[in-house]
C-alpha cells in the first residue's frame, strides 16, 4: 500500500503542475463579475499539492486491497483490463453487440480459462440479454455497428 499511495501522491503532484498551468490561464477576479472561473481551481490545485505532500510523508501501511500480488502478474486483471480498454476503443467502430460479444468471449477464454464453446455460448446469451434489456425494453439508442444496423429495421433497437 505504501508504494501505491506514494505513486498516487507523485501522480497528484504531476497533475498539480498541469492543472495549475491551465488554471493560471483563467482569470481569478474580474471587476464586473467578481470571483472568476480560475479562483477555485487555483486554490484547489495548491491544496491538492499540500495534501499530496501529506500523503508522501505518511503513506500508510498494511497490505494493499486485493492482496500483495502485483495486479500486472494477474491473468484476470490483465484480461478484464484489456477487455475494458478494448471495448472503449472498439465501441464507436463496431457497435455494442459485436464489441461486447468479443470482449465477453475473450474474457471468458483468456482471463477465466473457460472452453471456447462455453465462452461463446455465454457471450451470446449475455449480449442478447443486455441488448434486450437496454435496447428493446428501455429503448436506449445503441452505438451503431453491423449487427445493430441489421436489428434496427426490425424494431428491436434504435441507433444512437
Amino acid at each position, binding site marked *: 500500500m505504501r508504494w501505491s499511495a506514494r505513486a498516487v501522491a507523485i501522480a497528484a503532484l504531476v497533475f498539480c503542475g498541469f492543472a495549475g498551468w491551465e488554471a493560471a490561464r483563467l482569470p481569478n477576479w474580474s471587476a464586473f463579475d467578481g*470571483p472568476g*472561473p480560475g479562483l477555485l481551481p487555483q486554490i484547489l490545485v495548491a491544496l491538492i499539492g499540500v495534501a499530496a505532500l501529506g500523503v508522501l510523508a505518511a503513506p500508510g501501511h498494511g497490505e494493499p486491497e486485493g492482496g500483495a*500480488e502485483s495486479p500486472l502478474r494477474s491473468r484476470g*486483471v490483465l484480461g478484464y483490463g484489456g477487455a475494458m480498454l478494448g471495448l*472503449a476503443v472498439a465501441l464507436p467502430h463496431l457497435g455494442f453487440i459485436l464489441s*461486447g460479444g468479443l470482449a465477453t468471449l475473450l474474457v471468458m477464454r483468456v482471463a477465466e480459462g473457460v472452453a471456447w464453446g462455453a465462452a461463446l455460448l455465454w457471450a451470446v446469451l*449475455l449480449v442478447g440479454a*443486455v441488448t434486450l434489456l437496454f435496447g428493446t425494453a428501455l429503448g436506449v439508442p*445503441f452505438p451503431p455497428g453491423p449487427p445493430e444496423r441489421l436489428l434496427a429495421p426490425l424494431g428491436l433497437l434504435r441507433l444512437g
Partner: protein
Amino acid sequence: MMDGLIQGFAVLLTAQNMGLCVLGAVLGTLVGVLPGLGPATTIALLLPISLKLDPTGAIILLAGIYYGVAYGGTITSVLMRIPGEASSVVTCLDGHAMARNGRAGAALGIAAIGSFIAGTFGILGVMLLSPPLAELVIAFGPWEYAALMLAGLSLIAFFAASGVAKAALMALFGLFLGLVGLDPINGAPRFTFGVPALVDGINIAPLALGLFGLSELLFLALGKEQRAEILRPPSTLLGFMPNREEWRRSAMPIARGSVLGFLIGLLPGGGAVLASFLSYGVEKRLSKHPEQFGKGAIEGVAGPESANNSGTAGAFIPLLTLGIPANAVTALLLGALLVHGVQPGPMIMERQPELYWGVIASMYMGNVILLILNLPFVGLFVRALEVPRRFMATAILLVCVIGTWSTGLNSFDVLLAVIFGFLGFVLRRGGFDLGPLVLAYVLGPTLERSLRQALLIADGDLTEIVNHPIALGFLVVAVLVLLSGVVFRRRPAVVQDSGS
C-alpha cells in the same frame, strides 16, 4: 405531516412505484449477500436505468437498494463469517459465533427484527426532524452554505479510514473534477482541452460506473474464487425466533442502537458503517459480561444491526433537507436527483412533496417488505453465492459500458469510465477511500457557486464571514476537525460507506 404521509402512500401505491420498491429491496438484499458488490456499485450500475424512470420512481428504487443492503449483509456475516458489505463486518464476530453455537436462526431473527424496529425509528426521525431543520436552513445564505459544505467535507475526511491526508486529497480531487466544463457564471471553458464531450462537465455516470463498477470488476478479477463454508439457516419461520432470554438481552441494545445509529447517520462521513462499529463498542462497554463478546453475545448482533439500519435512514436527513450527502451512496442518490433536475434542499418538501413523501412512504413499506423477505427467503439469497464469479463479472462489464453510453450517447464517456475504473483500482490499492471523491464531486459545483456568490456580495472581502456567525461556526468546526485529524492520527480507524 400526516397529510404528507398519506400523499406519500398515494404516490407509492401505484403498480410501478410498488414494483420499484420491492425490486430495490430485493436487489439490495441480494447485493448485501454478495461479498464485494456494495451498494455504491449497484446504485452506480442502476443509475442509467433509473434515468429512464421519473425522479420519484428512480429514488424509490435506488433508496430501496441502499437500505436493503443493510439487511442482506447480515446473512453472510452470520452464516459464513463473510460480511456481504461493510456495515455488517462487526456482525461477523458474534453473529457467526451464535451460528456455530446452533443459534443461527436467533441471530438472523434478532438482526431482522432489530433492523425493522431501528429502520422504522429512523424513518420517524426523518419525518419529525426534517421540517424544523428545513425551516432553519431556509435562512442560510451563500456564506452559510459554503461553510456548511466545507465543514461536511472536513468531517468526511476526519472519519475516513485512510487518514486525513488521503481523504483530503480525494475530496480536493473530487471538487476539481466537479469544476470541469463551462464556468457556471461566465461560461468560460475550464479543463476541457478542446474535447466537446467535456464542455458539459464530467457526467456522474462514467465517474460512478468507473470508480465503483469497473474498479470492482478488476478486484473481482484479482481475487481468487473460493467457496466458503455456509452454515445452514433454519428451515421453518419458528426457527428464527429468539428465546425469552435472548429477547430480554436484546431489547436495550436495539433501543440504544436505534438512537445512536440515527444520530451518527446525520453526520457527514457517518452512516451505517460507523454506526454499527460504535454500537458494538457501546454494547460491549455496557455489558455485564463483556467476555462473552466475540463468542456469541446476542447484544453484539442486536445493537449493531439496529444501528446500521437507523444510520441508513438518518443519512436521508442531510441529503433531503440540506442537499448534502453523508456518504458515497447518498452522494450517488444526490447525483441521480440532480440528473433528474431535482435539487434537494430545504424547499424540497414544498416544491416536490410527492417525491419527498413518496420516498418516506417507500422507506416504511421497504422495511416491511424486507422483514417479510429476510427470514423465509434466507436460503434462496444464500444460493446467489453459488453463482460463479465469471458470470457476474462479465455482466458488470457489459452493463457498465452500455449504461455509461446510454446516459450521454457518446463513446468518450465510455473511455472516461474505463479511465476512472483503472484510477479507482489504483486508488483503492493505495488505501484511498473513494467516498470523499464522489461526495466532493457532487458538492463541487454548489460549493463553488455559493463561495463565488458570497465573495461577490462581499466584494472579495473574506473578513465579511465574521458578520455571519453560523458560517463562522461551521468554518471553525471545519478547521478544528481537520486539525484534530492531523494531530490525533492514531485514533481508531473506521470503515466508510464507500460501497465496497
